[in-house]
């Protein structure tokens, strides 16, 4: 009996050891992952915001400086899922449906959602908030009103239902509703005083407002009545306003702040990694921001598309991407739409656009020929206006000057303070200028709007009137069929960047977000507007 037992034990020994090894192999690496997936409650997240919010009303502002400290106090009707960006998920809406003709969107609203003052949210609050954004009363500023031109009326037939009736079947309508600026306010307040939210905070979000010391900090604490059970995990947060880059990096190094949600330069990233080692983690993503060159089309020789095309062709974007991404927060080469987005031209098509070829010798010969055809065979001298912001404007400006020098152009790089720079662009007091655009969404309605005629959109500094572009913008905006819309977008792109070459896309930005490993649940997206998604974050110790 004993012998049998021993024999049986011996026979099982290799199997048991094998099982143990398998368990160890599977279990040991699984442990940290498991720990990462088990959010811990408590703690205060300190992070840096590098500018001050002008007002507290998202419906009238355009800056991340307002979103980063104040967004955690609010909810939207629907929102972008920061873990699967750009997927749209319900926020205050429980679900939604669209009519077959795409002209009606019906949203079912969550029950039992409370504002921070204890009152219950209903569809009336949703309707009032969107009415303020889309149909603002006289004297009320709403900067995103043009994005919602397709909306005819908003209805709230019962406390749990909101209906958007459109003038035409608009593609990407729900994505536009998910704008991180579309905060839901309390109807009673905005009906009484539509400007109340400019200097006050009262939402339904995961954090309640505690204090704001102007120029210093913004503090929030957990909303214990938040509708998502168990969230948020953090006890609170503190947004520290630090405008100096060196002070920001020092704050990150010391651990007084764990993250800045916009991003840092490659040099700053390397410095932080060198100092903090494995205590810091770096997430990188192509950014929904780009650097372009705008030309003053009212001024010779930039009134000639051949000259503009020559300037575009002469710039080596692929080489620039390799070199500049080492020192500046730029990287991806792309056309009008963000590389990697659903609307972007595939690389095989992109390289066919003038200026995107890889044979630079041929491209520069072609550029010189174009200059000859335009009557400036010897080249000419002009000034490239730029912002006096170091990253990424300065290195890209210097790179452009060098590239144009190689086709015989003499370019003076003039960097100016932003207000003066903007005033000069508006007054068409420039030759060519580095310009930029940033947004929260890849939708063509948002990305193309800057390039419609300057009498339609004041943000177009080229001074050109091009009704064909306006028409294409209008068409794509009203084309529900995705493939047809994409075709129109690419036609727009070809006219803007190749045929007329009104602007030149240089490089898209690369987002580099270092953060302490202690901060868990954070996933960098392609833009800094949909963050921070504070309900998802937690601290590991």
């Amino acid at each position, binding site marked *: 009996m004993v012998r049998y037992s021993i024999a049986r034990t011996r026979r099982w020994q290799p199997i048991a050891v094998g099982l143990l090894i398998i368990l160890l192999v599977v279990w040991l690496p699984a442990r940290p992952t498991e720990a990462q997936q088990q959010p811990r409650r408590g703690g205060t997240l300190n992070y840096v915001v590098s500018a001050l919010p002008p007002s507290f009303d998202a419906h009238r502002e355009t800056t991340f400086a307002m979103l980063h400290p104040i967004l955690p106090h609010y909810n939207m009707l629907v929102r972008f899922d920061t873990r699967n960006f750009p997927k749209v998920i319900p926020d205050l809406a429980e679900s939604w449906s669209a009519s077959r003709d795409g002209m009606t969107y019906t949203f079912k609203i969550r029950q039992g959602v409370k504002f921070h003052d204890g009152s219950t949210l209903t569809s009336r609050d949703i309707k009032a908030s969107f009415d303020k954004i889309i149909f603002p009363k006289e004297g009320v500023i709403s900067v995103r009103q043009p994005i919602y031109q397709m909306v005819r009326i908003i209805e709230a037939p019962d406390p749990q239902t909101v209906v958007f009736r459109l003038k035409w079947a608009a593609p990407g309508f729900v994505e536009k509703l998910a704008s991180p600026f579309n905060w839901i306010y309390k109807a009673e307040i905005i009906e009484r005083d539509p400007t109340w939210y400019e200097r006050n905070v009262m939402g339904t979000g995961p954090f309640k407002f505690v204090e704001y010391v*102007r120029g210093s900090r913004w503090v929030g604490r957990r909303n214990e009545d938040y509708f998502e059970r168990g969230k948020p995990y953090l006890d609170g947060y503190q947004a520290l306003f630090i405008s100096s880059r060196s002070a920001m990096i020092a704050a990150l*190094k010391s651990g007084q702040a764990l993250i800045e949600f916009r991003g840092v330069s490659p040099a700053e990233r390397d410095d932080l990694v060198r100092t903090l080692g494995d205590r810091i983690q770096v997430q990188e993503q192509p950014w929904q921001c780009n650097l372009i060159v705008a030309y003053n089309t009212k001024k010779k020789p930039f009134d000639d598309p051949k000259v503009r095309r020559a300037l575009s062709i002469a710039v080596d974007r692929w080489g620039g991407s390799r070199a500049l991404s080492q020192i500046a927060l730029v990287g991806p080469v792309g056309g009008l739409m963000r590389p990697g987005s659903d609307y972007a031209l595939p690389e095989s098509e992109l390289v066919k656009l003038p200026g995107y070829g890889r044979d630079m010798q041929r491209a520069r010969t072609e550029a010189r020929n174009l200059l000859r055809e335009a009557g400036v065979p010897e080249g000419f001298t002009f000034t490239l206006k730029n912002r006096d912001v170091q990253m990424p404007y300065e290195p890209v400006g210097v790179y452009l000057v060098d590239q144009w020098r190689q086709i015989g152009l003499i370019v003076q790089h003039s960097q100016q303070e932003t207000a003066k720079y*903007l005033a000069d662009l508006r007054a068409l007091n420039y030759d060519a200028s580095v310009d930029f655009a940033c*947004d929260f969404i890849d939708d063509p309605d948002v990305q193309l709007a800057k390039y419609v005629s300057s009498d339609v959109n*004041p943000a177009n500094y080229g001074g050109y009137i091009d009704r064909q572009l306006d028409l294409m913008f209008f068409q794509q905006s009203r084309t529900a069929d995705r493939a047809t819309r994409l075709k129109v977008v690419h036609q727009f792109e070809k006219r803007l960047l190749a045929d007329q070459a009104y602007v030149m896309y240089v490089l898209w930005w690369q987002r580099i977000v270092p953060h302490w490993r202690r901060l868990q649940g954070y996933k960098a997206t392609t833009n800094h507007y949909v963050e921070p998604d504070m309900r998802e974050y937690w601290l590991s110790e």
Partner: protein
Amino acid sequence: MNRYVLTRFLLILPTLLAVAVIIFVLVRVVPGDIVELRMVLGGSYVTPQVLAAERARLGLDKPIWHQFLDWIGGMVRLDLGRSMWSGEPVAREIGLRLQLSLQLAIMATLIATALAIPLGTIAAVYRGSWVDQAVQVFSVAGLAVPSFWLGILIILFLLTVFQYLPPLTFTPLWTDPKANLAQLIWPAIAVGYRYSAVATRMTRSALLEVLREDYIRTAWAKGLGQRTVLRRHALRNALMPVITVIGLEFAFLIGGLVVTEQVFNLNGIGKLIVDAISQRDYTLIQGLMLLVAVGYMLVNFIVDLLYAWIDPRVSYQ
């Protein structure tokens, strides 16, 4: 004396009016538009109608003379208006930062004075000796090293050696003196060192000049002790230019520490001035420039009064 004080004080008013006119015109001559900066920068699709409505809301659509009268009218009622950027009252925006800037200026002045007067005196008394040379090196280094650079060095030193960074947010002195001093002592040292260098050199040269005077020789001849000669006769007279320098530096510190405030992330007046100018926040710029002007005028006024207190030869009769 009273009449002099009153006349001197009343003279501040026309000076302020002249300053107000200059500031008002200058900020509007500089190109830039707060509305575009706030709404269009970054390529947002904002209609011209919205931009016009915002300009109207801020009163920028009114004629310049109308805007000026509105502002002057407000000043008469002691109302500096609201910041065009934040919508907050200008007085509140300034008041929030003035506390920090004033405390930092006082701390830096105390450090500078505590260093400068003894060092300058010792250097003058032991002129040409190694002590004098050492003080000269100390003060020339202080003049040569910008305070913001010294500030960066201090931060790097604290971070590298002690893994310590001073607090990033301001706590009032009476709320938590320890946290307050932990934040402000480092910039005060950085600024106070440069400030002391100026004052040390001034003390030394003024004292050297006074020590050559006949009445000092008389004091020595009378058999007075060194301490009495220096403190009662020499230093008191030599302090006149030193006080002028200290006063002017103090006034400068209220709004002039732009870079140092950035380095230490101090929420002070200097940083606010830079923000206001870069945002073309006219009302805030006007309020801040008036504050700086008033600061300089008050300090000059106080310095004038101190002359009479320190030097019996000065009379305001």
